[in-house]
């Protein structure tokens, strides 16, 4: 730890300690009589209003991956990275269409996870299991990526011992994560909700300061865009191709407009079927809170667009560009940019913002994965008579297991690999879209057809992603491939295959009159706005009690 800036380091540590204190204190926040219930630990009492939900969902959606990986992609490839901006624009009108319905039906039936809804809607344990497995599978690498983001910041800070043993070298990361795991265990969803206030305040401050201050140091926006445009048009000597694109091209292969659009649409469809965003949604107290947030959350998207522009600033700043090139890791672009541009105390604030910005979603994701495991695997297949208290204990332990699984993921696997697994996570989670969102609007789809479509989409998506290669990697090189002569997002192709199979097989199963399964929901429940959750002892609620 020779080249650590002591001011930066001290500020990061102080803010981390503050957040840890809040995390533990949160267990007393809005305390209920009976805390041993998943509605309390897993959904913080389902009572959050517009303001808290805004922070919580914002914390959910904009993760370390956003702060590190989006500018890294912009830095490395140019305009294609801005698909993330387009995606965070269209995600809100899309979510506006189905999310209030999911909130209503989940509130009426006391569903805690999307798997509970699938179980109730289709009367199918198997389909709910497929939802739970997909959710957990997709969340693990996502949590691991939060750690990779923290590692990126720590390595630029110079924190970490020089030991060759990865566990000793990553000791600071390890400590941060153990602390996170413990307060999540104790406080449940209340911890990330309370911490997200601090986190977002830090992030809004450093992003707004950076966006006005850095261009003055780099000769203005005209110079930043000019340098970027020239850089991406230049031919890279090793690949013989341009460094990237400054505007998505209208050609059919490469960083095309079509690829841009399918990446954006695919990601937008996927975001609100991720279990952790659903957890954040179900924790809100009213249907109108969900709707109102859809028009308030674009403020975060604006922030994301500004963060993406940091990628161009890193290109325009010769020192940062050289540092990143030397490290050979585009993910260090934003940390290096801040370190070079800001005084060390402000760098500390920005770095703390990114680290805490990684811890909050990691906690929510672990809670969401744990709830899926408890409700749709443990209770469903192993202990149908589990009491609410046992469910809660199970979820608490499962959240620890999920976190340490993700930690191993982050430390053991090469980083490029874990990032590609995250892309794969997006491809996977998109495959539950037909059953989940389809089910919110119609019971027309047959449960077996949905299961077959899901299987096909998962298989196609995984194989197609495995087969993508480029100059440096022989597998998992990108989340787009070429279909019928056009570059397209793999998840998008997969979900279309999935939906087509679901439609065709539904016609077949209906023709042969295969058993449809019971539906415990009623049409008006999808628009209901009950004031209170149903009675807090729902032993069989959501599991076919009717």
């Amino acid at each position, binding site marked *: 730890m020779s080249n650590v800036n002591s001011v930066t380091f001290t500020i990061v540590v102080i803010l981390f300690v503050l957040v840890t204190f809040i995390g533990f204190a949160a267990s007393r926040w809005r305390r209920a009589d009976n805390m041993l219930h998943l509605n309390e630990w897993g959904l913080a009492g389902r009572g959050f209003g517009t303001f808290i939900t805004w922070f919580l969902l914002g914390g959910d959606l904009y993760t370390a991956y956003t702060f590190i990986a989006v500018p890294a992609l912009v830095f490395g490839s140019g305009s294609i990275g801005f698909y993330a901006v387009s995606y965070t624009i269209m995600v809100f009108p899309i979510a506006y269409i189905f999310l209030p319905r999911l909130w209503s039906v989940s509130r009426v039936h006391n569903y805690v996870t999307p798997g509970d809804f699938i179980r109730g809607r289709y009367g199918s344990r198997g389909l709910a299991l497929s939802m739970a497995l997909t959710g957990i599978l997709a969340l693990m690498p996502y949590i691991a990526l939060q750690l990779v983001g923290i590692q990126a910041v720590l390595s630029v800070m110079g924190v970490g011992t020089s030991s060759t043993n990865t566990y000793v070298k990553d000791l600071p990361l390890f400590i941060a994560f153990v602390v996170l795991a413990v307060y999540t265990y104790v406080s449940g969803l209340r911890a990330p909700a309370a911490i997200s206030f601090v986190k977002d305040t830090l992030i809004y401050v450093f992003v707004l300061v950076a966006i006005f201050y850095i261009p003055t140091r780099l000769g203005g*926006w005209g110079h930043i865009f000019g340098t970027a445009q020239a850089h991406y048009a230049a031919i890279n000597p090793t690949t013989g191709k341009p460094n990237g694109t400054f505007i998505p091209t209208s050609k059919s292969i490469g960083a095309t407009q079509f690829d841009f659009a399918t990446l954006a649409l695919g990601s937008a469809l996927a975001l609100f079927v991720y279990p952790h965003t659903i957890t954040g949604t179900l924790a809100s107290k009213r249907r109108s809170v969900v709707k109102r947030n859809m*028009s308030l959350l674009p403020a975060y998207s604006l922030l994301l667009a500004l963060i993406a522009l940091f990628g161009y600033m890193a290109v325009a700043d010769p020192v940062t560009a050289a540092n990143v090139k030397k490290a050979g890791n585009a993910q260090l672009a934003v940390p290096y940019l801040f370190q070079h541009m800001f005084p060390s105390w402000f760098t500390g604030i920005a770095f703390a913002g990114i680290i805490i910005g990684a811890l909050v979603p990691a906690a929510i994701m672990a809670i969401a994965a744990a709830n899926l495991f408890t409700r749709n695997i443990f209770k469903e297949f192993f202990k149908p008579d589990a009491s609410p208290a046992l469910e809660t204990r199970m979820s608490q332990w499962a959240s620890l297991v999920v976190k340490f699984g993700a930690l191993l993921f982050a430390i053991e696997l090469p980083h490029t690999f874990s990032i590609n697994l995250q892309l794969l996570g997006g491809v996977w989670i998109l495959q539950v879209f037909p059953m989940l969102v389809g089910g919110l609007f119609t019971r027309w789809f047959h449960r077996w057809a949905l299961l077959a479509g899901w299987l096909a989409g998962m298989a196609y998506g995984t194989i197609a992603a495995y087969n993508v290669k480029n100059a440096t990697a022989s597998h998992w090189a990108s989340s787009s491939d070429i279909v019928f002569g056009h570059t397209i997002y793999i998840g998008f192709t997969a979900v279309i295959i999935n939906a087509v199979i679901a439609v065709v097989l539904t016609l077949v199963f209906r023709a042969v009159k295969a058993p449809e399964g019971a539906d415990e929901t009623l049409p008006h429940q999808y628009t209901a706005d009950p004031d209170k959750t149903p009675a807090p002892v729902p032993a069989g609620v959501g599991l076919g009690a009717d």
Partner: protein
Amino acid sequence: MTETAASPSGPRGSQDPSITYRNPVAAHPITSTAIALLLLVTIGGTLIVPIYARITPKIGDFPFFYFYLLAYMPAVGVALWLVSLLQRRLEPPTAGSSDDSVREAAR
């Protein structure tokens, strides 16, 4: 559970929501169309990339592509707020009491 009253075997009064429930989309065709259009235009405006994938005209120092994406964010917020206002007109009379601003104020 509260919804057992609405199950097929349960007694059905005139206030039973499963009977009085009427699809609000069918009841208000014009408002519903306006909502659908607003949502579609908001999605299409960023999904159809050729609309804005160009450098000129520059707004200040910002190439059009980047300016467009930045300017779109506040527009989405406003569009969705308008949609939520329009949706209030769709609410069936029985759900009138669920006007949350009234309820929240009453607390």
